[in-house]
């Protein structure tokens, strides 16, 4: 009985179930109750590694090479042991930098390079398309085989049919549609698809169950267990060969290269990166996946040899393709349900791979190929568009469709030239090219962008030359002589024996040359090149991800407007999603709304992360730069980088030289920093001193006011005495405040100057007249010695008077108590006038002769009484005299009085005038 309609119905129902699971998973994720947040789902979803290539191809490969199918699974098993070291670091880096694909990872590591991201995307697409073709081929041929039921006939291959009758085309279109609905329902900054992961885990379960069911049916239904089956199989002519190494099962060398290859591909296949890194919910899930995933691989391989031998025994040689044994064995024994289950298992293996792979590739195409190009293409006007989320989704959907059609084309054109398993290996070898740039980027700080670019390019070219072109030649697109004699008959360029290297299998040969070239170029160019500061910063973020968690934003200084940043993110994620994201961010920061956010480095970093999810790290940088004004790094960051730099750059003399220069710059910066801090400290001291000085008179005023207030019955005499103190201290306070302000004005250069030509003798006489009352009270005699003719000087009369009054009252304060005498003398020097004010007091210690010109420094007889005054008179006087171009100093010795002297420059009056008006100098010159 044919199964026709039932096949379609079952397949439809199965896809429906998948979609339901995905839908449910997304819904649960939206309400925050993730169904994939457990390690079993994570490990199962990793099993997307096992595609239809495993499901059907393992048996095919086992039929040809016996245990030779095993290395593909031994590699991942070995790598699983290293997951905690390698994969965990990859996950941590990706989470910290919002990385959404392998292309993004490599681009971000090497200074957010758009070029590098594009190259990786290109390699991934070219490398993986054959693999997608393989899945299409598997689904369509298994469908065609089952369609013939109960007959067992190998399908008439696609080339004979027109495209419209070709099942593979419909399969491709259906899968594209399914993936679009599945994986691009909305844009998300983290680029995670919870529903998809749930569905993939379910598919892994289905394909495992289906394969185990066939295995059990064959081993225990058709035979009496393993022992019986293998005993009968020994009668097969090929059995010995298939079970020992060295023959068709592969040499030790080819085993080693296959194991190595599959170790790399479990990390670097785009779908594996998507599932194990991007979709990872919790890095602790890795701990279980480390043993669960190898267990899965073991389980799905247990029955490969039994099914292979059973197939070889049941079907006459050559009548049935070994790739189809899994399906044809149940069919031959009329097990319709089992056959259907197998078909569904194969379908799930294929769809799982195609869905994840195309989603991962479409993210890369969109973020690392399309966006950077659109951003550069001014005419497209991307920067002006308001909401780009639709455009982004459109690009991704288009990319999925395109990938599927390319896969179909490849299948049509080349699908028959190769057995399933070889196509898979070609893809493996392509993605293995990511290994140097990825692993080097994670563990080696010196790896540079140029190194990664040259390594990847060279590796990719060698891969294409030694694997892809031969495949084309075998498909008839190139003359076979290309393989046999080499291009232009140059023997050492033969693509399968490059430079005369023979004796390796095709894959091993290609892997050797491409990885040798890749690694050599990466390391060599990195060693002889220099990193930009951005590259260096990114390198530190990646390599030291476990040390510098959360330091990502510290290497940025700039300014931006919050609304502009939000608007920018909104254009890519959609305004609603962006508003939501920033509101969450604001809430985390303890702000009421996003309007209260400060446009700091953290905010820009957050925005960049959001954008990076949608359009890739490189493009996110470019876009943000359009609204953000970056400033040079701050001193601390520069110091940090220079420290690193001086270590890194020490390896060549030329670079050492630069390193020395950097060290010098570092030293200068440090010194500048120290000077600034010293200035800051001085300012602090000044303010603290001013406050202290102001508090002292205030203390007396307050104390006596309170005393008077609390003691109304005080005697009038005492009362008067206290009030007199209050008045005196108030005057002192006022004077002090005025002088502090005066000094502040003088120092900041904001004082007003009324400069005029004036007669110094007249000003001195004025000052003497003002103080004569005070001097008389204290019984101080004053002598004046003025020359007959005093040439005029340019100065501000009031300020000059202020200086003279200060000097005279100081002299009066400190001159001899009993027979006080002050002498004022004016001398006319060739270029200046000199004024001396001499007293006959105790004099000033040489040690104190400088300090008295400092602010608030008073020198007096501390044993008896504090000197009256503010401690600001002399500093102010010195400021004034220096403003006029003169000098103020003191000469004294203990017991011999003190002489304060100042000079005022004579010069040409015009010259003096320039000093004050300043701007005229240039006109005259």
């Amino acid at each position, binding site marked *: 009985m044919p199964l026709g309609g039932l096949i379609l119905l079952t397949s439809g129902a199965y896809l429906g179930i998948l979609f339901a699971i995905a839908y449910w998973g997304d819904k649960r994720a939206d309400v925050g109750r993730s169904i994939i947040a457990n390690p079993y789902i994570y490990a199962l979803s990793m099993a997307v590694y096992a595609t239809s290539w495993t499901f059907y191809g393992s048996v095919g490969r086992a039929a040809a090479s016996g245990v030779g199918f095993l290395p593909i699974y031994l590699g991942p098993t070995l790598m699983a042991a290293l997951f905690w070291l390698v994969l965990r670091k990859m996950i941590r880096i990706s989470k910290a930098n919002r990385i959404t694909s392998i292309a993004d990872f490599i681009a971000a590591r090497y200074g957010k390079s758009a070029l590098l991201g594009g190259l990786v995307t290109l390699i991934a697409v070219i490398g993986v398309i054959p693999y997608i073709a393989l899945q299409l081929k598997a689904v369509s041929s298994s469908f065609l085989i089952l369609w013939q039921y109960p007959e067992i006939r190998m399908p008439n291959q696609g080339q004979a049919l027109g495209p419209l009758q070709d099942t593979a085309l419909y399969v491709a279109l259906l899968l594209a549609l399914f993936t679009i609905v599945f994986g691009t329902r909305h844009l998300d900054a983290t680029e995670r698809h919870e529903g998809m992961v749930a569905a993939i885990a379910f598919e892994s379960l289905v394909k495992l169950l289906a394969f185990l069911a066939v295995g059990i049916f064959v081993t225990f239904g058709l035979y009496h267990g393993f022992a019986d089956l293998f005993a009968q199989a020994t009668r097969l002519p090929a059995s010995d060969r298939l079970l020992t190494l060295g023959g068709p099962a592969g040499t030790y060398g080819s085993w080693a290269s296959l194991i190595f290859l599959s170790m790399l591909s479990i990390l670097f296949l785009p779908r594996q990166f998507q599932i194990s890194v991007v979709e990872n919910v919790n890095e602790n899930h890795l701990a279980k996946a480390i043993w669960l995933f190898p267990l899965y691989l073991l389980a799905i391989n247990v029955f490969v040899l039994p099914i292979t031998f059973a197939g070889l025994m049941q079907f006459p040689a050559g009548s049935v393709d070994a790739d189809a044994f899994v399906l044809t064995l149940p069919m031959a024994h009329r097990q319709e349900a089992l056959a259907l289950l197998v078909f569904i298992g194969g379908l799930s293996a294929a769809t799982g791979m195609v869905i994840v792979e195309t989603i991962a590739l479409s993210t890369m195409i969109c973020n690392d190929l399309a966006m950077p190009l659109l951003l550069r293409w001014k005419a497209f006007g991307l920067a002006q568009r308001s909401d780009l989320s639709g455009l982004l989704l459109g690009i991704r959907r288009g990319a999925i469709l395109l990938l599927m059609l390319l896969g179909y084309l490849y299948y049509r054109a080349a699908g028959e030239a190769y057995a399933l398993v070889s196509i898979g290996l070609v893809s493996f070898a392509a993605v293995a090219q990511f290994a140097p740039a990825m692993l080097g980027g994670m563990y080696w700080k010196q790896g540079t962008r140029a190194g990664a670019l040259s390594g990847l390019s060279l590796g990719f070219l060698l891969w294409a030359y030694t694997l892809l072109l031969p495949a084309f030649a075998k498909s008839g697109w190139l003359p076979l002589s290309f393989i046999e004699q080499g291009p232009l008959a140059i023997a050492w360029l033969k693509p399968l024996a490059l430079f005369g290297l023979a004796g390796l299998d095709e894959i091993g040969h290609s892997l050797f040359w491409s990885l040798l070239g890749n690694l050599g170029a990466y390391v060599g160019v990195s060693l002889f090149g220099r990193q930009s500061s951005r590259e260096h910063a990114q390198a530190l973020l990646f390599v030291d991800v476990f040390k510098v968690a959360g330091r990502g934003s510290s290497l940025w200084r700039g300014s931006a407007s919050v609304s502009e940043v939000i608007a920018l993110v909104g254009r890519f994620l959609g305004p609603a999603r962006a508003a939501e994201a920033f509101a969450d961010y604001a809430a985390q920061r303890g702000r009421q709304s996003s309007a209260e956010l400060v446009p700091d480095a953290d905010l820009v970093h957050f925005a960049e992360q959001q954008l990076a999810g949608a359009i890739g790290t490189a493009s996110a940088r470019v876009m943000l730069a359009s609204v953000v004004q970056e400033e040079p790094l701050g001193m601390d960051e520069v110091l940090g980088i220079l420290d690193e730099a001086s270590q890194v750059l020490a390896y060549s003399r030329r670079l050492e030289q630069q390193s020395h220069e950097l060290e010098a710059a570092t030293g200068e910066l440090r010194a500048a920093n120290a000077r600034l801090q010293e200035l800051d400290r001085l300012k602090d001291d000044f303010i*603290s001193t001013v*406050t202290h000085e102001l*508090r*002292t008179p205030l*203390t007396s005023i307050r104390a006596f006011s309170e*005393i008077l207030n609390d003691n109304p019955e005080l005697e009038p005499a005492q009362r008067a005495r206290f009030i007199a*103190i209050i008045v005196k201290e108030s005057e002192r306070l006022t004077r002090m405040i005025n002088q502090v302000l005066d000094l502040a004005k003088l120092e900041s250069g904001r004082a007003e100057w009324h400069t005029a030509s004036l007669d110094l003798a007249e000003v001195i006489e004025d000052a003497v007249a003002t103080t004569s009352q005070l001097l008389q009270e204290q019984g101080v005699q004053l002598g004046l010695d003025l020359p007959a003719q005093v040439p005029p000087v340019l100065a501000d009369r009031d300020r000059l008077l202020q200086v003279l009054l200060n000097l005279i009252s100081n002299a009066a304060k400190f001159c001899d108590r009993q027979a006080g005498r002050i002498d004022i003398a004016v001398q006319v020097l060739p270029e200046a006038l000199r004024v001396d004010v001499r007293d006959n007091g105790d004099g000033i210690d040489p040690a104190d002769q400088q300090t008295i010109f400092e602010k608030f420094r008073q020198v007096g007889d501390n*044993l008896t009484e*504090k000197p009256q005054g503010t401690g600001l008179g002399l500093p102010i006087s010195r400021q004034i005299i220096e403003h006029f171009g003169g000098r103020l100093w003191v000469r004294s010795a203990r017991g011999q009085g003190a002489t304060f002297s100042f000079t005022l420059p004579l010069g040409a009056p015009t010259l003096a005038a320039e000093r004050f008006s300043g701007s005229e100098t240039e006109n005259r010159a």
Partner: protein
Amino acid sequence: MSKSVLIADDEPNIVISLEFLLEQAGYQVRVAHDGQEALEAIQRQPPDLLLLDVMLPRLSGFDVCQKIRENPAWQPMRIVMLTAKGREVEVSKGLALGADAYITKPFSTQELLAQVRDLLADR
């Protein structure tokens, strides 16, 4: 017998006010104008309480405080530090050196008297 207080401050007017306040409150009051003089006065006759300004000529208030606390015989003496520098650092430095209380200028006369009274009542 009334309690004795030594005032150590170099601001004449502040000394006058403190002298008046404390005598009015019934204490025996003596005055020192710098740190050295204060220590000498204490050696002659330790007071029950010392009102100690920080910014004293010759020997700072901190030094005086430290020297007093180094001498076991003077342990019972109460020390109230007075200063116009009200910074946290100064306060904790004074308290760390063994002062019992710290009063910043300008002070409230009532609070100062209450503080002195409390410290002397403790004994």
